[in-house]
């Protein structure tokens, strides 16, 4: 069995799907591509596909991660299905939409894997890179991540009771809305939050998860820590602003980058 890490994009067509729906979209793309997938054992055999940290419903993602497992003889089987792998450098199939891949010995296969997956991909899914990694390497769920988010929308100054008009602000040369709140949040030693979920309630401190925060006229950019035990939700960042007089009305959400740390 070989393990392949996929770096993929989640576009608008898959943005409103759930984490499980996206798992299905990738696994079905791989099945359509006739890849020699490795399957789990047991009554319900499923393709061995492990997903990175869940992307919430409504979010696009630029650098999402998943690990796909293929059978040992995958290279040979893929040759049969998708044409010969060994191409001279610079002779890559232009129909393949992948941008690059890593790992010198697997370069061509990684490239072909991207192409095969993209040709069969569900709308909204684009595999950008694929590279092999040792089976024993830490699983995606056990990694720590730095996730950068961009939220687009508009501000409402709840304390003043009016909408913050971005155009007016810019013309007046005013400071970016809520920027003082962003600075105060970063400067705070702790950010207590009471989280209510269908599973229960708990108190937690958001501050350790907040790595960077910036507001724009019509946006929030934030970098968050994601640990194997969880992280902060985008709604909770908005809640911090709302509690401080600024309501952010979300129109678009994107996880722009996801950096992982194995240790």
């Amino acid at each position, binding site marked *: 069995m070989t393990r392949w890490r996929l770096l993929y994009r989640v576009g608008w067509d898959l943005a*409103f*799907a759930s984490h499980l729906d996206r798992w299905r979209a990738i*696994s079905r793309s*791989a*099945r359509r591509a006739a890849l020699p997938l490795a399957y789990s054992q047991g009554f319900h055999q499923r393709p061995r596909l492990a997903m990175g940290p869940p992307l919430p419903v409504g979010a696009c993602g630029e650098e999402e991660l998943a690990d796909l497992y293929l059978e040992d003889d995958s290279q040979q089987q893929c040759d049969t299905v998708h044409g010969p792998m060994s191409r001279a450098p610079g002779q890559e199939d232009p129909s393949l939409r992948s941008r690059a891949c890593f790992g010198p010995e697997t370069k061509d296969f990684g490239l072909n894997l991207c192409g095969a997956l993209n040709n069969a991909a*569900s709308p909204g899914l684009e595999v950008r890179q694929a590279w092999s990694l040792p089976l024993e390497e830490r699983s995606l769920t056990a990694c720590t991540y730095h996730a950068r988010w961009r939220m687009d929308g508009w501000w409402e100054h709840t304390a003043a009771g009016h909408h913050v008009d971005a155009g007016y602000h810019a013309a007046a040369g005013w400071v970016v809305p809520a920027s003082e709140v962003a600075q105060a949040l970063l400067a705070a030693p702790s950010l207590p939050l009471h989280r209510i979920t269908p599973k229960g309630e708990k108190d937690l401190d958001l501050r350790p998860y907040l790595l960077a925060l910036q507001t724009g006229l019509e946006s929030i950019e934030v970098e968050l820590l994601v640990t194997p035990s969880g992280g902060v939700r985008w709604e909770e960042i908005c809640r911090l602003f709302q509690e401080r007089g600024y309501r952010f009305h979300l129109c678009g959400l994107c996880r722009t980058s996801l950096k992982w740390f194995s240790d």
Partner: protein
Amino acid sequence: MLYQVERPARYLGGERNACRKEDAGLLRVALAYPDLYEIGMSNLGLSILYHLINAEPDLSCERVYAPALDLEVLLRRDREPLRTLESGRPLGQLDILGFSLQYEMTYPQVLNMLDLGGIPLRTAQRGPADPVVIAGGPCAANPEPMAHFFDAVLAGDGEEAILEICRLVQSWKREERRTRDELLLALSRIPGLYIPSLYRFHFSRDGTIEAIEPHPQGPMGVESRRVKDLETSFFPTRPIVPTLETVHDRAQVELFRGCLRGCRFCQAGFIYRPRRMRSAGLLKRQAEEIIASTGWEELGLVSLSSCDYPHLEELLKSLGPLRAEQRVNVSLPSLRADSFSVEVARLAQGHQITLTFAPEAGSDRLRQAIGKQLLEEEILTAVEQAVRCRFPRIKLYFMIGLPTEREEDVHGILALVERLRRRAKGAGGGVKFSAAVSAFVPKPQTPFQWEPMERLEGIRAKRSFLRDRLRRMGTEAGGQQEELSLLEGVLARGDRRVGEAIFFAWQEGARLDGWSDHFSFARWQSALTRCGLEPSFYLHRTRPREEILPWSLVRFPAGPAYLWRERERAYSDPQPTKEAKE
């Protein structure tokens, strides 16, 4: 808006294999399903018609499903119309809007979708610029309750008729001085297409139909449509793969249409006659193409009674490579206990956890009377085999209030379940039984269309007795709520006056009423009272043979004379006929 609703992917489209045509000059058709995306996307008929229309270069077909309540609230608040999934076009801007009517309880949702889409609700209110609103599906067996709202209703198979309708509307649109009345009259010449507005119904004092007056230039009723040869008829091998999980998230091939069994309560069995089959070779090819184009992990071999497919074992064997190499699970959704074999169970075990059998009644005598040719011993053997094949759950369907039912038949349900449990235990056990007990609802175009339905008190007493006893036996017991069954009875055999009650119920908030948590019986009672209608008129009287039935203008292969003979046999000659005559 999408951030404020549950499961927004329902409303977005953009799935694999969905068609999006943007050229100008196309005839714009949308197929509508008056229930949520998850339910509607599993409908095979709609999938066939969607791809069939889109295969024509000058036609475009889109989809629209019922919005959940959360989206409806936002659409109404923001005065936004309901739109199609593919192009986001408001429904009012389409040329044809075709509803699939699978179940009577979806009628209010049809009105809701028309209203949200900006289309006048009644056919009489629509002008030349409005879409032609048509319907098809099993409920076309009695189109009358929705007569005021549909321009046309197609009885029978849609594959051939839908293109004829599209072509006719297309040429009508090209004409300069066109009127809607002319269009409706022209549509009435398409075989199988019933145009309700071309008929005037006269009611007598006792509420029955006195006479039906057709339009001077229109036909007197319609004969249902039938695809003669399924082998050569269109079947999509690149169906849409839904983004979110649907109730039947799987590939489907249709083994055959129709059913030879002739159970006297079963509408589908009568309206889809005669049985027409596909060959095992064709089904295998279709299955392979569908799996290759979709990546689905499960393949459903669908039909009204899949075990009756004569080449089933050959087909299952030929699907071996698909199952072994591509790990495709094969499922057989409609099983009959008398043709269920160990081989079939083993071959089809795949993904299925729950095996469903429908003994329908508690005694051999009653089963024979209703035409269910199934003996108790056959059910016991089937369950025993299922237990040996390690199916962990078995679900049993029963009906109460069936014609000729006696007290011992009701008790017989308990006795049968007890015997099944004992037989299962003897075969190794480890199986969980559940039973769904629902009231029998007489349906149009069946031998029981003249029968009364049992009264609420009777149904309630029997159901609660059975559910209580079954639970005490350790068997989960469910089934359709009594009031829901009664209402289904009114809507199934209603006439066009019932349409007003549907309208009032919708106005008062009736939406996804087939879902029992959305259902309010009081709302429907007040709607019926407002129209001066008495539910018992539709439900509890035996209709005489000579009474003009609201659906008498829509004729299916099994005509009233045959149906009446079958009804008589239920009372006089309960001896089962092995295969019903075509």
